[in-house]
């Protein structure tokens, strides 16, 4: 009887020590789920979801306090991916889906106030005080954060047109009339 207890106690101590060691040795920094959610989000850092950036929104989703349908730039595609990852139900997007856009500064009107430069989350606007500013199109995420601060309303958002670089083969579609 005592030997049995001793064996069980020894086993418990050994296994407990092993588990305790493992929890320190293989400690996971941060929440891995948040990283996965963040990887799905489009990283426009636009704040349209109501959180100050993609990472905070990912954290909010991860902790269960935010819905998954708040990200307009991610679109329905993003909602579907998040639903897949989290095992939640797909919900319609809580805003209208927009085509990908790029900000353009109307340079004749720009007064060089640098307010848009401060607003841009990805440093995609170049310019200096009292100098004309311009948007580096390839870096612009289309987040629209620069539009509001502009005191002279010289920033417009333009949808990115189809060109040879982003052209895609279409999904094959056939006329039903011909097939009938």
């Amino acid at each position, binding site marked *: 009887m005592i030997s049995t207890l001793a064996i069980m106690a020894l086993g418990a101590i050994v296994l407990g020590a092993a588990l305790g060691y493992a929890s320190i040795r293989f400690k996971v920094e941060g929440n891995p789920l948040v990283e996965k959610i*963040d990887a799905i989000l489009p990283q426009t850092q636009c704040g349209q979801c109501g959180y100050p950036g993609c990472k905070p929104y990912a954290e909010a989703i991860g902790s269960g306090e935010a819905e998954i349908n708040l990200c307009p730039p991610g679109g329905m595609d993003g909602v579907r991916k998040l639903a897949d990852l989290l095992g939640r139900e797909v919900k319609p997007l809580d805003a209208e889906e927009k085509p990908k856009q790029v900000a353009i500064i109307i340079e004749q009107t720009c*007064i060089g*106030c640098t307010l848009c430069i401060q607003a841009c989350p990805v*440093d995609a606007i170049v310019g200096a005080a009292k100098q004309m500013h311009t948007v580096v199109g390839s*870096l612009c995420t289309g987040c629209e954060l620069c539009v509001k601060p502009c005191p002279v309303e010289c920033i417009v958002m333009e949808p990115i047109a189809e060109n*040879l670089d*982003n*052209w895609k*083969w*279409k999904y094959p579609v056939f006329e039903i009339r011909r097939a009938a």
Partner: protein
Amino acid sequence: MLSRLFKFNGGVKPQTHKAPSVELPIGQAPLPERCYVPLHQSIGGAANPAVSVGQSVLKGQVLGNADGWVSAAVHAPTSGTVVAIEAHVAAHPSGLPTLTAVIVPDGRDEWIDRQPIDHRHLAPEQVRELLRDAGVVGLGGAVFPSHAKLTAAKSIPVEHLVINGAECEPFMTCDDMLMRERAEDIVRGSAIFRELLGARQVLIGIEDNKPEAVAAMREAVSRLGEDYEVVAVPTRYPAGGAKQLIRVLTGKEVPASRRSTDLAVQCFNVATAYTAYRALAYGEPVISRIVTVTGNVEQARNWEVRLGTPMREVIALAQPKPGTHQYLMGGPMMGFEIPDLAAPVVKATNCLIAGSPALFPPPPPEMPCIRCGACAEACPHELQPFELYWFARARNFGKTQEYFIFDCIECGCCSYVCPSHIPLVQYFRFAKSEIWAREREKQAADAAKARFESRNAREQREAAEKAERLAKAAANRPARPVAEKADSSAPPSTAADGVGMTTSPAVANVDTEADPAPEATAIKQATIAAAMARARAQREAVQPKNTAALTDEQQRQIAAIDARRAAVAGQADSAPGAGDG
């Protein structure tokens, strides 16, 4: 002589339709009224414009320089004046525009100063640069810059150099005619490639339905005293695919997502070898190519066409018969329908086909896949098209990659044999371009994230530096009695935010420094308000033009608009005033 040839899996034997276009020798296409030379004519970077609008250019002058290593230069196809560098419809299934140099020929067709070069006196790197600057690219249709394929890996010496004259696509005879008429230059071009790669053996593969080309090439090889082997390979589509021809000639199978150079084999098209020789021995850059014009036409023939000639003019040479309802660029298996005949002939244009409902009957309606496996039997890459189809149709792109969709060469054998008439290749093209688009989006998102994070880090660092500066300035000033009081009430977070900001004068200083801040904000706001006023004044200062002779109707309209404007302005002015009050 090779002891035996090898086989590749599958393949099909469509009707060749090659006979009509080989009756006449290669003709010289006339000079077009305007040449539209796209600056992006190869895989890789688009060439950077090297001429300006209004400049007169000579035949063979560089219009665009190669952008980076995987890119090739483009040249003026004739002498004349550059009248525009603008967007013009591209030779592409989308019919979208691309940056194009428009040249109005002066009719003199005057060459630049051509410098024949003996490549044997040059270092291999210099030869490669010359080929890049002469715009030599793979003319089989893939237009990959040739110089980039001529860099032999040090670890694997190239054993076989395969020269591809198989030309397996139906209708197409441009390589056939080139081999019949200009065999010697092709052999000499192959010699250049062989020297650059240090290949042990040169194999020239030609489908056995072209006996004249085989004979011409054999004769040229023996006349030049080379030890190349000209091999007639069995006619079976797609024997002209690089990996298939390598398999047939050497028995080596290129594994998934690897390159033939890993197996010590490199492959070039015959026309590429020809242009490489012309570029070095005659100093002539690639400004024209042989194009087969065939199909539902009166006179099918091969033409040597200047690059940039509008396709409409080239097709007119063959006199299309009535009943032509579409035009294809490339062969019927891998080509595409040209959306706009204003598109120019480019380096990838090997064949133009006038299609009639008799030649290309409309495809029967798509039926459900019955998983018969006929497509897998026909696939020359031993893929499983029925599985790929299933996943591509369901937009399950991860799975398509697991089934090696990127090894698909889009040869069309699967669609050809499908008893349910499913356009399988269209599904695969759709899946591939979707995957590329997602890849691009992912890269853009990663870049945006990195920039956002570095911006945040910079802002934090700047805030910390400012706090440190203030702390230092405060420490240099004599301490004030307020300091003690502030020290006890200082919130711990202030100390944590600043670096080394634990001294009491610092905190006091922050308190005192805070006073001028509202003043600065007020100044800033005033400046902004002034700027807004200026901008508005500028907008209003614009005087309308052409107001001399207006009709009564127009005057009335203008008056109405002005009244509306005044009303709106009045509202806008009163709104902020109300807010302030």
